């Protein structure tokens, strides 16, 4: 009842804010290579230890991807590039209504087996990329 008091669903404000901020973010990442400015966040794990974390290179990956440069995107962070579709579907489960509508998909991508797979893949990727300099 009060949910539609203003004529808009309650989450509409967050949605609009998210679209605007996300859009600005994408334009920034498309326009500037992350190496160009120290305003882009650095990985503190890499700075401290000299080893890459599982997410190192994801900003460069995004920059190359937004410019259609798939080969460089793959070289920057292959794991995140490959798992982008999964991450997008998983993120869409947070949109009100979607979670209820696709219970089996939700179960498949965020159930116990899915979580433990994510855990294993991230840890393996973390170790292997430091051994083989991926």
């Amino acid at each position, binding site marked *: 009842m009060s949910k539609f008091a203003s004529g808009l669903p309650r989450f509409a404000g967050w949605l609009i804010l998210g679209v605007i901020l996300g859009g600005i973010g994408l334009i920034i990442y498309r326009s500037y290579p992350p*190496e160009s400015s120290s305003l882009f966040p650095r990985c*503190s794990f890499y700075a401290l230890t000299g080893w890459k974390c599982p*997410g190192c290179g*994801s900003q460069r990956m995004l920059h190359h991807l937004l410019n259609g440069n798939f080969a460089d995107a793959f070289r920057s962070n292959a794991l*995140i590039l490959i798992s982008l579709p999964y991450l997008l579907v998983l993120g869409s489960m*947070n949109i009100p209504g979607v979670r209820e509508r696709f219970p089996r998909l939700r179960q498949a991508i*965020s159930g116990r087996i899915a*979580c433990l797979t994510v*855990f294993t893949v991230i840890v393996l990727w973390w170790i292997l990329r430091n051994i083989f300099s991926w």
Partner: protein
Amino acid sequence: MKNYYYADQHNIQQGPFDLEELRTKPINRNTLVWHSGLSQWTLASQVKELSDLFEHIPPTLNVPAGTPSTPTSSLPPRTWLIEAILVTICCCTPLGIVGIVYAAGVESKWRRGMYAEALQASAEAGRWVKIGFGIGICIYLIGILSMFVFPLSSLGFPFFMHHPFWHV
């Protein structure tokens, strides 16, 4: 005065209420309730201040053995998995991984009828994700500030800024 909370049919935490307010809310035997002093979310039927509410309502008929009892809602609490993954790859790898491990318990416990445990796993996952996110933001802000704050930088703080990687 004790503060009471309950989980509504969408598993959203409602409250705080005092006891009189809580008793007017749409709660049934299976609603999860918490008040200070309880270690876990507890079924309303087992909270003694509320037990008289259900005296005249027949309990749910026994379901065949092996079938989990009906949940207060068919929808499990959120797993925080996507947030945990983002914290793992963007902010703070160790805390994000702790979040992923807790996320693994949420849906499976819910399906086995362990509703209170599922809610708790969800809350734990959310807690670690938020701590990791906060740490990530703090490290980023310290990095930005230390480029402008000369006296601190000259003291070598924060020390990792002096790693050659930082000065790309």
